[in-house]
């Protein structure tokens, strides 16, 4: 489900959902948080392209705000999608590390 949902947008989508996993954030806070934990600065266009896609898929939702900056939060479907995607990624990471250790030894 997760690959089909994110497709080639898996990168920004994973970063955004991971950032929202610890609470709602607006666009600027998302950019700063993602830059801090992943070392990647999502450009505004890319961020909102992914946000509108995730919003359309029901994986995140906008919260009411008096400010022009509207916060987003993860939905239950979004949390399940992120969990499933990260589990797949972890399997890939574990396999890659095991194979590396087998052929190249541990660093």
């Amino acid at each position, binding site marked *: 489900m997760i690959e089909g949902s994110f497709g080639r947008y898996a990168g920004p989508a994973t970063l955004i959902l991971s950032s929202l996993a610890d609470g709602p954030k607006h*666009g600027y806070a998302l950019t700063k948080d993602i830059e801090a934990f992943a070392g990647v600065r999502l450009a505004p*266009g890319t961020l909102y392209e992914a946000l*509108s896609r995730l919003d359309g898929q029901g994986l995140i939702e906008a919260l009411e705000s008096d400010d022009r900056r509207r916060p987003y939060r993860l939905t239950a479907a979004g949390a399940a999608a992120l969990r499933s995607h990260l589990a797949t990624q972890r399997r890939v990471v574990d396999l890659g590390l095991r194979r590396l250790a087998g052929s190249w030894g541990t660093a």
Partner: protein
Amino acid sequence: MSGSSDEALRRAERLVRWYPKGWRSHYGDEFAELLAADIFERPRSWRRDADVLKSGLVARLTTVGLSGHALEPLDQVRTSLVTLGCAAAVFLAFGMAMWAQLTIGWQWAEPNTRGTFAAMVVMCASVLVLFVVMALAAVPIAGKVVTLAVHRRAKGLVRPSMLFVAGLGVLVLGARHFANGWPGTGGHPWFHQGLVPGGVAAFTWASTLSVSSYWAHPGALGSFPIGEVTWMAVSPVAMVCLVVGAAKTARRLDLSPRVLGYESCLAHVAALGMAVFLAGSCSWIFDGGSGPQNLFHPGAIDVAEVLAMTAALAVAFRATHRAHRDGLAFLTG
């Protein structure tokens, strides 16, 4: 707020205008805020500006059902089919201009090469198929509009329908007038000399008179009667009114999945018909021969028409694919 942050917000709001209206009404304010903060931190960044241009284009393609971002299935089918209709209209505007020129040539002399002869037969057959498909596609849409009008539930359809009727009316009346005004195309009785009756060829020629290389030669254009030049300027506006009116009407109609499935089948046939027509056009371009006495000699405008038709066909194929993959396939399981 300081002067530089004001300036950043103004620049951000200018950039946000590139996004479609629907997207702006939903995300515009918050996106402008983020963009302004980014511009304040990095006043000059071509990467950011390019990123905004790219994502704005994606948002525009999404609203016409062409991006990788699927809409809700029914909306996806409806949007993609409307986009296909618009692409087909652009294709026909250029294709009919080329076809009219060739069919009028055939009123006077037969094509001078086998390739051109074959190309014209193929083009005539595909034009026939395309117009039959258009008529078949229009039946359920017109039926729905009439039904809603009879039950006085066509409130949102009045303006687009009137735009369509106005565009069609101007185009038909103007093309009839100018078709009859030129003796070379005025429906003379030499029916046997071509695949297409002279009156039809003349009408098509007159309705696509604006697709002309004379725009690049103002001196020659200045020697035309003022009425003809005015028609060359007015007829594209009428075409746009006709297409926009039809597109808005179709988009606002709540068509059932069954009707959308029917329209989608016709869309496949239309895309195939356009591809066949384009193949015929290319065959003529490569085999039309040369020389000022040759009625079938292709020129630079014809190459430009082929390029425009190719672009319209690419959009049509993409729209047909999206309507089927993300809409109908989902609806029918």
